[in-house]
């Protein structure tokens, strides 16, 4: 019995002593060379959708941001949107108006009423924005990391402010996998050099340990960073981060469900969650260090 107690004690000591160091410092600034202001055109046409490759059609051209929205972009947006009363700060939250959803009284469905809804929780420790002299800025080192802790309302609002919208799930998946039914944006297999996922041993995981951190948008483009070699993992249309790093909000509102859907998997998920058809969902007010977004807009002439 004494021995069992000793083993048990040892287990407890090990368990308490093995947590990874907290992420307290700024990450090293890394220029990926990918401009997050770039948009690419996805041509109209058929593509294979879902795990079982059902034929699907998007019969119009549309443009998608080449990366997810960065902290710098979102900070810039907040400054503009606040000055134009597009959004407001109430207490420690950025909020904005949403006209509400039709309610169908489906089991577990919650009402999404018209009114002000949370966009960004300003006191959230994982937020990479700071307010200096009244203006929002990205935390040093996080400028080109994806904007996180943004709700569906906050993501939608950003896109609409600039004349775009959130992608539908169809648009997102077509942009991610092209037309050949591939499971990952870059092809059929996933390796640690393709994307930021749980325990992918990326540069930032090595710095902060455990669940790691977001990587700068467009990080996996074939470049070598401080000796860390990546593989160019763009989608067939040249989009980056369509698998891993952060889940991405999509815009669909489905009848009988108040949930909003996310695609792409994140830094906190195992690799299989990065398959292009994998869905996640949450209430539209949900925010997380693992959720961001990108926008689509009508094809420019």
């Amino acid at each position, binding site marked *: 019995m004494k021995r069992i107690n000793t083993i048990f004690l040892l287990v407890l000591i090990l368990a308490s002593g093995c947590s990874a160091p907290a992420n307290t410092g700024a990450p090293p600034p890394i220029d990926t060379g990918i401009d997050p202001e770039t948009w690419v055109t996805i041509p109209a046409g058929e593509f294979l959708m879902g795990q079982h490759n059902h034929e699907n059609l998007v019969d119009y051209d549309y443009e998608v941001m080449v990366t997810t929205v960065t902290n710098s972009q979102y900070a810039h947006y907040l400054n503009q949107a606040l000055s134009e009363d597009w959004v407001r700060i109430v207490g420690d939250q950025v909020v904005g108006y949403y006209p509400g959803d039709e309610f169908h009284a489906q089991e577990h469905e919650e009402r999404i009423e018209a009114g002000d809804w949370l966009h960004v929780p300003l006191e959230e420790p994982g937020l990479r924005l700071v307010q200096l002299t009244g203006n929002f800025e990205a935390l040093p080192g996080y400028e080109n990391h994806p904007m996180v802790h943004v709700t569906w309302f906050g993501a939608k609002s950003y896109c609409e402010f600039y004349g775009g919208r959130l992608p539908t799930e169809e648009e997102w998946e077509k942009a991610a996998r092209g037309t050949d039914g591939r499971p990952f944006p870059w092809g059929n297999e996933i390796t640690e050099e393709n994307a930021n996922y749980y325990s992918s041993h990326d540069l930032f995981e090595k710095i902060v340990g455990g669940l790691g951190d977001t990587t700068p948008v467009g990080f996996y483009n074939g470049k070598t960073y401080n000796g860390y070699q990546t593989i160019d993992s763009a989608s067939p249309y040249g989009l980056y981060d369509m698998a891993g790093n952060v889940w991405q909000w999509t815009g669909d509102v489905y009848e009988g469900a108040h949930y909003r859907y996310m695609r792409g998997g994140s830094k906190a998920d195992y690799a*299989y969650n990065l398959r292009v058809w994998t869905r996640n969902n949450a209430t539209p007010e*949900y925010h997380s260090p693992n959720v961001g977004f990108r926008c689509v807009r009508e094809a420019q002439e």
Partner: protein
Amino acid sequence: MLSKRFNYLFQSTKGLVLVAIAMISIVTAIWGMLSGPMVEWGIKDFVVDLTGMDLVPAEREGRIVMLYHVIAMAVVAINVYLITGIQPMHTHQRTSINATITAGYLIAMVSGLGFAYFGHNFILHGLFLFGQALVFFSGILLAAALWPWKEELRIEKADHARSKSGIDLERLAFFTMAVATLGSALFGAVTGSYWGNGHETFLAEDLVREPHKTALQLSIIGHLHIMLTLIGVSITLIIGRWVDFKGPLHKIAMYFMIIGTIVITLGAWAVVPFEAIAHWIIYGGSVFVLMAGLFLVIFTWRKLIREGLDTKGIRRGNLWQCLQALGRDPLPFGATWQMVFMNFNVSFVGIFVAVKLDEIFRVWPARDERVILTGHWHVLSGIIATIILFYYADLAGLKGKARKWFGWVLIIFSDLAFASATIFEMKRLFVTESAQQALVNGVMLTMDIGLAIVLVALALLMIWRLADLFQGKGRWSEELTEEMNATPPSTPVVTTPPLKSNPGVKEAGS
């Protein structure tokens, strides 16, 4: 001598259980390398390369479904062996049931894993279905053999529960469970075959928030829930015979188990046409089954305490003496303790999630809710597996210190793993996503340590029995002789004498 060993492994109850546990251990050892934490340690890639597995990303769900079925078939086979060993039946029935299910699960296991993980040879897929069909057919044979109205095949013991008309209620409970299992297997098999022809496989946990589920999806959800429940019912009944459950509690428990089994099963089947009320039917049935389990635990613990105090010559012990007596033999205590512990990890968690679903859990992202669901039934499966191991360790003849060490290691470290898994599932109650890293690292570590030590204990048990097979007059030889000499053939071949005379040594034969 090789043929004698073959006879032991494939004809005796203890040998058949040993083979099935060994097969599950091998599958677990290899396929366990494909998931965390082996993934992050790079072991998965090594195993995949070494074995030549072909892991097509789009087929992950299909592979997992086949893996679950392969393991489930072997577990069902173990339960069937134990049932044919403890319930009176004709020798030819016992032989044909055991032979059929052995062929079935082995064919299903080898061909199923071959198809799922090593390219898609559709002959193997056909054999996988054939193997499962054999398992199903053996279930029909078992139900027939357990027919409760055969007067000559009843356990005739004082205090053994009977109805007013003399029906052996425990046998009726086994029979009810067997018939319910057959129907529930069809519930999955028919719908899966009919709608699954496109091989568009899915995991039930991925559908949880779909507002509109198809009949196929509902039937598969019902199927997987009821099959695991019925495996739980069967092992509870088996443990009852192990500890010689009898008396008034036995009688009430058997009535409750029969009623509960029927109600839960009908509730699970009702998920397709009456989803809205099916849960309530299942809850109602669960109360009966859980109460039956509780009565078994009360009976067993009272018995263990009484016997433990007797060995020390104490008539009425104080609390500490009673606890010492209760834990004196960790195998029967462990099997029943797990039934209690299961409530903290499965039942209470399930009830809490159900009650607070919209308020708490549906506010979380779907992937977090999914973790609860997968954790929930992995823990339940794990607990059932440990209960089987407690019983098998007793059947295998573990005695003395080895028995105590094995028993306590299994209790402590499996529960450490299950508790860690439960905390991991529910972590969002305690920490935000931004601050979860330390907690996740901690519980992952304790979970892995718990599982690893349990697997080492299991491996040692298997090695011990493997080494025994190399001895000319080993334990296996005695066990075979005892079982083959059991007369008359209608009596149980694995009997359950009181535990008090010699903890851990079961007598074979009657």
